[in-house]
Structures are given as C-alpha cells and as structure tokens.
C-alpha cells in the first residue's frame, strides 16, 4: 500500500476560457475549461490545476464561475493558482469549489500570506507555486523567477522552498522555467535539490515530452507530475503516462 504518483494536467485560463494550445480530440469547444476538465477526469487525471492568468477583476470573476462549474462536474481535487494574494482570495476560491490554491508572486511579495492562509485553512490548502531556473548568482544555483520566468526575484529557490514550508505551505509545485516548453525532460537536478530539503509533497512541472520523462521525475523524487501542452495537443495520454510509471514500479491509480 502506498500513495499513487499523481498525474496532473494543467490548464491556463484567461477570463474563464482555456488558452494556450488546446488542439485535440472531439471537443465541441476546445476553450471550455469544464468540457476539457471532464475529458481529463474520464481519462484518469488524479487532480486538475487551473492557472488563472486573467489581469482584470472581471476576468477573475469569470474564472470563479468556471471553477464552480468544474467542481460540480468533475469529482477529483482542483487546485487553482494565479493572482492569489491572501486569505480573502483563498476563502473565495475554496467556497467556489477549489480544494487547494497555488500562491506564487503573492507569497514572494508578502511571505506572511502563507502563514495566514495556512493558519486559517490548514497547510494542505497552500501549494507554493515555485517558478525557478538555473541562476549562477544564487548559492544553490537555482533562483526564483516571476512574470513567467522573465524576471529574477533575487531569491535562492531552495532557500525559498524551505522557508515556504516552514511558514505552512503543504505542497510545492516546482516549475522549471528553463525546461518549460522544451519537451526535452524535467529538470531532474532541480527536483532532487528541492526534494532534499522539504518533506511535503512535490509536484514536478516543466519539460515533459515523453512518458519516460515522467518516470525520470518520479525517480528524482516527485510525488506528482504535471504537464500542459503534451496533454492538450494529444501528444501523450494520461493512461500512457500511468502505464509507463506502473511498468517502472511506481504505484498509479487506474481510472
């Protein structure tokens, strides 16, 4: 008996619509997050992550509505990130049907937000979304970025991961900004470096191109593996990723 390695599709959402590379299968409306989430649920996704990239409050309101409709339709855990600043944002997302929230820039700007959210809702709700890249100037060689990897936050990624967990983050979503979009594999050294310093569950993200890449991430210590475009474009199927993980000896949930 042990936990299954979770396989998690990630949907980028703007004003309640899925954006970025949805190009597959028989969806009536490839931009409808609820339809896509339902499809992934049927295909065996263990969890879903929504990343809200809306800039306006109207856009966010639309996203809340989308989360609500998804939670009514797909009975697996939902994590929602993007624009989370503090307790009020989290309260609204949880009431809408999210189970976990991803916090990124909001925590870099004001780290106490992690403590406050964890104290109010429990640390299982707080996912530190960590966009990191190789940065020679940082002690560990890995630095934290903001703005989709374009800007250095001037923080050491490994130190920040430790601090966030000490403050109450219950999980880390580690996204390699170097590997993201390359489809040449996860940054395994980065996964190992974070794994070595935190005990909370670790989700690996960025760089998946083949089913073997997911196996490599699990071997490096990831408890869950997340990808976007390879699933959206239909290059890989969730079942295929799980089959590879299972053949490599990792427990998976057969949907």
């Amino acid at each position, binding site marked *: *008996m*042990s*936990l*299954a390695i*979770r396989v998690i599709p990630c949907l980028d959402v703007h004003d309640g619509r899925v954006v970025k590379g949805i190009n597959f299968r028989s969806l009536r409306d490839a931009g409808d997050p609820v339809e896509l989430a339902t499809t992934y*649920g049927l295909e065996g996704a*263990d969890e879903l992550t929504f990343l809200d990239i809306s800039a306006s409050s109207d856009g966010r309101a639309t996203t809340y509505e989308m989360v*609500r409709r998804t*939670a*009514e339709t797909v*009975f*697996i*855990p939902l994590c929602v990130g993007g624009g989370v600043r503090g307790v009020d944002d989290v309260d609204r997302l*949880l*009431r*809408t*049907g*999210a*189970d976990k929230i991803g916090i990124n820039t909001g925590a870099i700007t004001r780290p106490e937000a992690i403590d406050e959210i964890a104290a*109010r*809702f*429990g*640390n*299982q*709700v707080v996912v530190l979304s960590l966009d990191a890249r190789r940065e020679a100037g940082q002690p560990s060689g890995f630095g934290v970025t903001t703005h989709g990897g374009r800007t250095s936050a001037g923080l050491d990624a490994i130190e920040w991961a430790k601090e966030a967990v000490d403050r109450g983050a*219950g*999980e880390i979503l580690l996204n390699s900004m170097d590997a993201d979009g390359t489809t040449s594999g996860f940054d395994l050294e980065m996964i190992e470096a974070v794994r070595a310093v935190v*005990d*909370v*569950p670790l989700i690996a993200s960025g760089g998946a191109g083949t089913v073997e890449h997911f196996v490599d991430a699990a071997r490096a210590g990831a*408890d*869950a593996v997340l990808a976007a475009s390879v699933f959206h474009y239909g290059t890989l199927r969730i079942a295929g990723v799980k089959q590879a993980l299972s053949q490599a000896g990792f427990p998976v*949930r057969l*949907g």
Partner: protein
Amino acid sequence: MSRPVVAILDYGSGNLHSASRAIEARGCEAVLTSDADAAFAADGLVVPGVGAFAACLDGLRAVGGPDVIRRRLASGRPVLGICVGHQAMFAAGIEHGIEAPGVGVLPGTVDQLTSVRLPHMGWNTVVAAPGSVLFDGVQDERFYFVHSYAVHEANWPDGVRLTWCEHGGDRFVAAVEYGSLSSTQFHPEKSGDAGARLLRNWVATLAG
C-alpha cells in the same frame, strides 16, 4: 419512493459545494444547513470538515452539531463524517501539542501521522473492513486523502467496522462504520468513480 433528503452541515468549514453536488449526483436532495432541527430531521446528515481540529470543533459546537450527531445516532439515523468531520467523531484531538475534546461518539484520539512525508496527500489504497457496506464493490480502489492527523488505535466497541490505510509505514483508521455512523478520513466527494460508488452505498442506507 421520494428522494432522500441529505443535510450537509454548514458550520463554516470546508468545501461544502463539492460534497453537496456529489450527494445530489447520487439521487438525493442535498440541503446546506446550519440549523440543528433541519440537520436532525433529514434522512441523512453529512458532517464535512477541513482545517484544524480544534477550530472545526468550535465551529461544530456553535451550531449545536455535537448534540444533533448524538441524537441522530441514538435513534439510528445515518450520519456520514468526512475528513475532519470524521475526526470530530472521536473523543479528542491533539494538534500542535494542544488536546481538544471531540464529539466523542467513538473512543480514540486523533493525533499526528508519523510518516516523514506529510501531509498524506493523494490517492491511497485501503484494507476494507470485512462485511463493510460502504466499501461494497470498491474494496480494491484508491481514495483521495489529504490530512496530517488520524486515529491510530482505541479501545474499540463491539460491532465497530474499521477500514485501515497506511502511509510511510504508519497504519491508521481510514473509515469507520458503527451503527448508523459512517465516517471516512478520505474525501469520497473527491475520489472520482470509487468515491461516487461509496456515496451511493451510503445513500442506499437512507430512508427516503
């Protein structure tokens, strides 16, 4: 036969929306309520819960929850506790070294899991109690857990059916069936098809 009415106890804790919709999807009328009389009168009562044990119990007491739970169980009316709502059924909980009393319809203390990797988050298998009604047809499925605390042992009463889970070498109670009380440490409302089947098994025990 009319649709069973299931009250979802609203005491300021947790994702009530998902629990409500999952129950409705099993053919029930789900009612979110913080009213003790409505919670007593419903065919089934769901006690959800997310967050810290002591805070949840404070919220539960503020709506008269412990009394409603005891009265329902005394008259054989079904109650389903989920996650911290499951933990609330036990005698006490210890978090951060502070012990707080629970509803106490089951003996035992909720305390921290001993695995290194916490929270216990994700899909795990269980060893279902022999003769379990809840796990009929889903004994071998995985369910979604997210917690760092659980009940390990207790001086169990006769007739209790215990379902167990294990994480990192630590064995703990995953579900309890005792009289008209059912409760699960995991989230059936977030456990996909397996969770839906389990909820259906529970709903089948309701009068309606």
